[in-house]
């Protein structure tokens, strides 16, 4: 599936939620199910800078595609990470680089986000995108 197709799928899934509680219950649920990052990758260098809550980032590049493993001390942030991994992990660097993240607004997370979560979300997305740029330039 393409990045946009997955985003559309997520938007549809969120349409069935009526309250912010339901949305966050869902985020907590998928946050709990997110596989934890291997302890050996939870290093100082792998911390995403600027996230208020500790969040670690690890990526691998295989067969022209980027794969992400990201973990956080916050369960809500883990829920967001689960969505971002679903969208971006296994995609080509140039597709990741060029993707626009429409789903954030459309699923109504933005309006409900306190600065700390928003901050974390954009910092993680920036990290994913800069990693994609790095691998795209390497390919050239």
């Amino acid at each position, binding site marked *: 599936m393409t990045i946009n197709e997955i985003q559309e799928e997520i938007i549809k899934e969120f349409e069935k939620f009526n309250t912010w509680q339901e949305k*966050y219950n869902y985020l*907590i649920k998928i946050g709990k199910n997110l596989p934890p990052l291997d302890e050996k990758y939870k290093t100082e260098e792998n911390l995403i800078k600027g996230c208020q809550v500790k969040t670690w980032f690890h990526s691998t590049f295989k067969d022209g595609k980027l794969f992400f493993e990201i973990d956080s001390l*916050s*369960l809500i*942030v883990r829920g967001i990470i689960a969505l971002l991994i679903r969208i971006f992990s296994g995609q080509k660097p140039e597709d990741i680089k060029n993707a626009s993240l429409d789903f954030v607004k459309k699923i109504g997370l933005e309006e*409900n986000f306190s600065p*700390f979560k928003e901050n974390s979300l954009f910092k993680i997305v920036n990290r994913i995108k800069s990693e994609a740029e790095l691998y795209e330039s390497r390919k050239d």
Partner: protein
Amino acid sequence: MFKKKNRFNVKKIRKDFPLLNQKIYQHPLIYFDNAATTQKPKVVIDLIDKLYSEKNSNVHRGIHYLSEKMTEMYEEARIKVQKFINAKYPHEIIFTKGTTESINLVAFSFGEKFIKEGDEIIVSEMEHHSNIVPWQMLCQRKGAKLKIIPFNDNGELLLEEYKKLISPKTKIVAIVHVSNSLGTINPIKEIVKIAHQNNIPVLIDGAQGIQHQKVDVKDIDCDFYAFSGHKMYGPNGIGVLYGKEKWLEEMPPYQGGGDMIKEVTFEKTTYAELPFKFEAGTPNYIGAIGLGAAIDYLNNIGLENIQNYEKELKEYGMAKLSSIEGLKIYGTAKDKTCIFSFLLDNLSPYDTGFFLDKMGIAVRVGHHCTHPIWHHYKVEGSVRASLAFYNTFEEIDYLVKALKEIKKMFI
């Protein structure tokens, strides 16, 4: 069961604070972030408005009417602060922009004169970063050493360890009055007494002390006491350094500029008398006068009444929060104020704080600028509910209810 025995008219008091009367995400605001900053009574807000609308003019330049009046009001504010903390002289009150600047001033000016290589400075494990970093910077400049008084798991300083740290090399002790993260009220009078037996001066970081109880610097006998206006219902950007005359006289100025000089030539500058020696540039005179109004307001309610009511809030809050299964309180000192630091189950404090916000409860989450405290407990930080005298028992009940709901969400 806890008995509410106060006769404190909190309903009436809340009307003095316009900000409290609003809804956040459709819930009535519960403002439990008072250790970060307190809200302002209308008398303070109105006065500042009036000063800018009708009275504004720079101080200490006075040939004209407005400037003279403003200078008078500024100096009256200094006297209000002097009386409020029972300092010996008005010129022992230096206006700064806040506690941080007050501590930096002492670390620089005292350090310049009295600290040399190999000297030692004592702080504690529960200091705010603003009572650690300025001293570390001084140590780096001078080749001095920082010594740390540890605390026990209740959050009480180990005075026996403190006594052991004192040596002929110790030049100053800098200790927090009330911990912003744990709520501990430190026995500062005793700490000062021990230091003075060894002829060592003491600075007290009173950022969280001044608003919760009567502070009498003569009685405490501390050499310096630093605090902020905005944490005691006054305006932002104004703070106080109290210093004993004998130290302030001997210390060189902190910053150079206008207002702090007697005479300037390119060969030599002579400095102004106290307190102006330490107030370079245009001071925050409107902030200072606003702080004076906050002091009047507190005096009207009575510090003793505030202290008694807040003690009841503290006891009620501790009892109620302790009853939540899986909630761990950090800071259980015998003598503590109404600051509650806690973690709920194994949740990140960010997650707990996020949902409290959604329910209209403003708390702070994280390390609260006290990394060493959380290193002590080996956790990343806490959720901190810090209360003031305009908070109520009902608000504590609502917090407890909200926390129980959050617990359910994460099961």
